């Protein structure tokens, strides 16, 4: 139902309120300094790998978590490999045996920070005849310019984002103007009166 709202006329009471609210407020005297310092701080979540190209996995830094026993076994095996390598010319078959002692299965790659590892979540929206779709939500501060989906086949729009595990509210924006929810996901009512879709991003299950 469309509600017809008349253009409001000047209202002295509302004007009085507005005048009061237009008064300046005090901010921290160091505010500008803090902002300029923050410009150099790294972004917390690399949501936009296309803006900052990811390095190939082979040169990306990794941290490995090794249990004490596995570390001891790996160190012992490494010493064994070196020792056996020295004897390689005389006993080549022993090298093969030694390399199999390294407990590769005990080496678990983890994220570079102390936070929960990022998880890849794919957003997909199905509709033909659109010029653009972007997704806005708590993961990108509702920035409607930052996260555009790609039409991978006619009417199939998708993007994969790296997110921390958690629950996120979001919407899609069709053709830059129309906000819609994801028909495949649950909805909640936002504080701003419009419904939001909700997605739960679960932590990656260790292999």
């Amino acid at each position, binding site marked *: 139902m469309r*509600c017809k*709202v008349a253009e409001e006329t000047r209202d002295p009471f509302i004007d009085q309120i507005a005048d*009061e609210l237009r008064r300046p407020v005090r901010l921290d005297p160091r*505010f500008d300094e803090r902002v300029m310092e923050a410009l150099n701080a790294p972004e917390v979540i690399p949501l936009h790998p296309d803006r900052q190209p990811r390095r190939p996995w082979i040169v990306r830094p990794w941290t490995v978590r090794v249990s004490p026993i596995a570390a001891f076994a790996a160190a012992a095996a490494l010493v064994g490999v070196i020792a056996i390598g020295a004897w390689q010319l005389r006993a080549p078959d022993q090298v093969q045996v030694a390399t199999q002692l390294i407990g590769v299965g005990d080496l678990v790659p983890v994220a570079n920070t102390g936070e929960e590892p990022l998880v890849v979540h794919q957003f997909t929206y199905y509709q033909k005849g659109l010029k653009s779709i972007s997704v806005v939500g708590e993961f990108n501060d509702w920035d409607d310019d930052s996260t555009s989906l790609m039409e991978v086949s006619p009417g199939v729009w998708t993007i994969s984002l790296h997110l921390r595990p958690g629950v996120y509210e979001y919407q899609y924006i069709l053709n830059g103007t129309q906000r819609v929810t994801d028909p495949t996901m649950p909805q909640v009512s936002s504080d*701003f009166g419009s419904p939001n879709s909700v997605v739960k991003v679960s932590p990656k299950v260790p292999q």
Partner: protein
Amino acid sequence: MTQTRGLPIQNDSDAAIVARVLAGDTGAYAVIVARYRAQYGRYAVRMLGSREDAEEALQDAFVRAFRSLAKCDEPERFAPWFFRILANRCRTAGTRRGRRERTFVNDDIALLGASEEHPAERAAWREELERALQRLDADQREAFLLKHVEELGYDDMAVITGVGVSALKMRVKRACERLRVLLHEVQGG
């Protein structure tokens, strides 16, 4: 950080400053921050009801705008572009705060502003007004501030909020009605 060099740029247009920042003169961004801090800080404080939350939202908005500056298609219209970012940041901050605590936030410094020269009654009225404002639904508060305090037209409000003009008019109308009731309750004792 690259520092601003050469002639003073305080009076340069937003577009000129944006161009300097994009060319690598990061320090020039300080002029943008100083230029819009007060105006948009006021909006954030009124919207969030707390100086601390407002400063956080405003700082995040400035940082986000800086990192997205290359996407500002009309740098001569930096201000409305930035306002949209800030409004989104305030929405996010408001949602998070709403989850934390559903009660309104009071912050005497933010609420009273520069109040040293004003009598106690005036300060009390301001405090009641801020309380009433924080009792509005977030969408009504946002619409009211954009319309009556920032004095934006409904078309601009629609661009900033992503909400249709009719819905915005309704929100403003309801906000006015609710404020009238809340403040008359106070005045009527």
